[in-house]
């Protein structure tokens, strides 16, 4: 931009002309800066201040002393965390539930997208998409309410089916052994249809001539799927997998809290529900902030490791 006019170019100190043109640019577009102010302020106040406030994980935060007067205790809370058998049990729950989610819930949208893509009757496909996207828009309370209603030992649909088959009715939400399956299963019901969108978009980009050529060469449907379809969506799968890995410990507060009761808490409690109960209700502020930080750092670490591995293996990653 400097040197646009001969006069600007002839001025010897280049820096002043640069800053002057910057200033005039700034003046010219000051409206842009003004309207961006509230948004920038928002990120500073509601994102960066709490992030700085996370330093209280290294303090013995006391609500009366406040942030500045509370004593610093270093890594004390992190050490305490790993000495609590309660914390270790909940960490184990979180890892197990996250692991089941990765194994059972992650592949479902991929398979559904491939099957949807194989459907040739457009109307049928459209109707089906409308139906499978729908649960995504229901809240977790509603999903929880529906699940509790269906699984109810006395009035639920599942148990009346079991009874009509001559089997005993089961109190699904009252036993530790079912809670993890219910948590992962309800997520599959809610979001696997919606999850197909990303993969369907990737599938739509495949050149139809590839299938044409494969058919002429005598490849059957399975061959076409395994040799054309799957390789085509593999990069998308890798990216979604990395995002999923980064959220490994973030199974979600709302979806678990609604299912918890004293009978299943032992296997169903995760870090987020623990942080709410011990942090907010019992007010162990510093300790639970330490847990929260631990969770964020692990998530970041997992994303970075996954990204490096993916770059090595496939040449593409998130960043």
């Amino acid at each position: 931009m400097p040197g646009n006019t001969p006069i600007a170019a002839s001025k010897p100190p280049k820096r002043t002309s640069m800053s002057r043109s910057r200033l005039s640019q700034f003046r010219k577009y000051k409206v842009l800066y003004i309207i961006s102010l509230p948004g920038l302020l928002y990120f500073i106040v509601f994102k960066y201040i709490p992030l700085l406030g996370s330093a209280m994980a290294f303090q013995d935060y006391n609500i009366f002393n406040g942030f500045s007067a509370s004593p610093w205790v270093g890594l004390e809370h992190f050490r305490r965390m790993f000495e609590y058998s309660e914390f270790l049990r909940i960490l184990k729950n979180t890892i197990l539930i996250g692991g089941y989610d990765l194994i059972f819930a992650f592949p479902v949208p991929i398979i559904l997208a491939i099957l949807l893509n194989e459907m040739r009757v457009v109307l049928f496909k459209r109707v089906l998409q409308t139906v499978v996207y729908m649960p995504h828009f229901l809240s977790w309370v509603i999903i929880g309410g529906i699940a509790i209603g269906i699984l109810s030992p006395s009035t639920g649909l599942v148990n009346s089916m079991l009874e009509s088959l001559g089997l005993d009715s089961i109190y699904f939400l009252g036993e530790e052994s079912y809670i993890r399956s219910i948590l992962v299963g309800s997520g599959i019901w809610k979001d696997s249809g919606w999850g197909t969108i990303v993969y369907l978009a990737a599938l739509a980009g495949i050149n139809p001539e590839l299938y044409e050529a494969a058919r002429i060469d005598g490849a059957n449907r399975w061959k076409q799927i395994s040799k054309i379809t799957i390789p085509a969506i593999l990069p998308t799968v890798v990216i979604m997998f990395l995002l999923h890995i980064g959220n490994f410990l973030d199974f979600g507060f709302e979806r678990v809290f609604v299912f918890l009761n004293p009978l299943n808490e032992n296997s169903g409690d995760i870090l987020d529900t623990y942080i709410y109960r011990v942090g907010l209700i019992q007010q162990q502020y510093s300790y639970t902030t330490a847990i929260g930080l631990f969770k964020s750092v692990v998530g970041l670490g997992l994303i970075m490791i996954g990204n490096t591995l993916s770059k090595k293996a496939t040449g593409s990653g998130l960043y």
Partner: protein
Amino acid sequence: MQPSSKLRRFHLFDCMNYIFMTLLGIMMIFPILHVLAKSLSSEAAINSGRVSLIPVDLTFDNYQVILNDPSILRAFGVSVFITVVGTLINLVSTASLAYPLSRQEYQGRKPILMLILVTFIFSAPLIPNFLLIKNLHLLDTLWALMIPGAISAYNLFIMRSFYMSLPNELIDCARTDGASELRIIWSVVLPLSKPIMATMGLFYAVTHWNSYSQALYYINSRTLYPLQLRLQEIVMNNSMAEAGGLMEELSNVSPSGVQMSVIIVSVLPIMLVYPFLQKYFVKGMLIGSIKS
């Protein structure tokens, strides 16, 4: 011989696929029909386990109970309020940051974008957020449900990529015509942003309508409970009572028919806008996935 067997194989795959997918569709619909049927059945029929997909002893009593319960009606009103006002706050604050960040003329947008991306990847734990809300005196006000989530970084990036896709010539043209920057935003950019505003508005509105954790963290007064939190309370009380075998003894346990009708009432607004939702959400998802 060969081609005909291949043809049959194609046929078999398709058959299986259509049957499987139909079953899947049924699995998605049945639970909701079951809840609807229960909400329209008498308590006696529900308790005897006779209700599956069709209402037994058709009655509107359960809905009558809701209409006579001021706490549920109030919660419905609170939810409508935070959805409407909250979404307006979201749209104004997201758009007014996304547009400048999409312009070449805005100095320093690269570092700002990086700093915003950081908050997207690494977010603060619950307690520092809670203390911030407390220190700002937003605790136990409806603002606590609308201000802290005013801009979602994800939506900001989607909106920014929409503004970046607007043709530059359009804005340059308006500039050479002597229009001020404000005028350009008002009469050129805003009218063009209708589709992205609709998409983002629905994104935000559904989040507001469906969320209950924010209210659980920040709201104490029962008069300020949004519908989802009230519903969560009803569902949870019931589940707790069932867990303790106290079904009949607890007075705050709602009959399951009433529970089911509260579920239907809170699903209804979503279902009414679902046709729009599907159209705009899919579009928004695609913009998001392509750009990121």
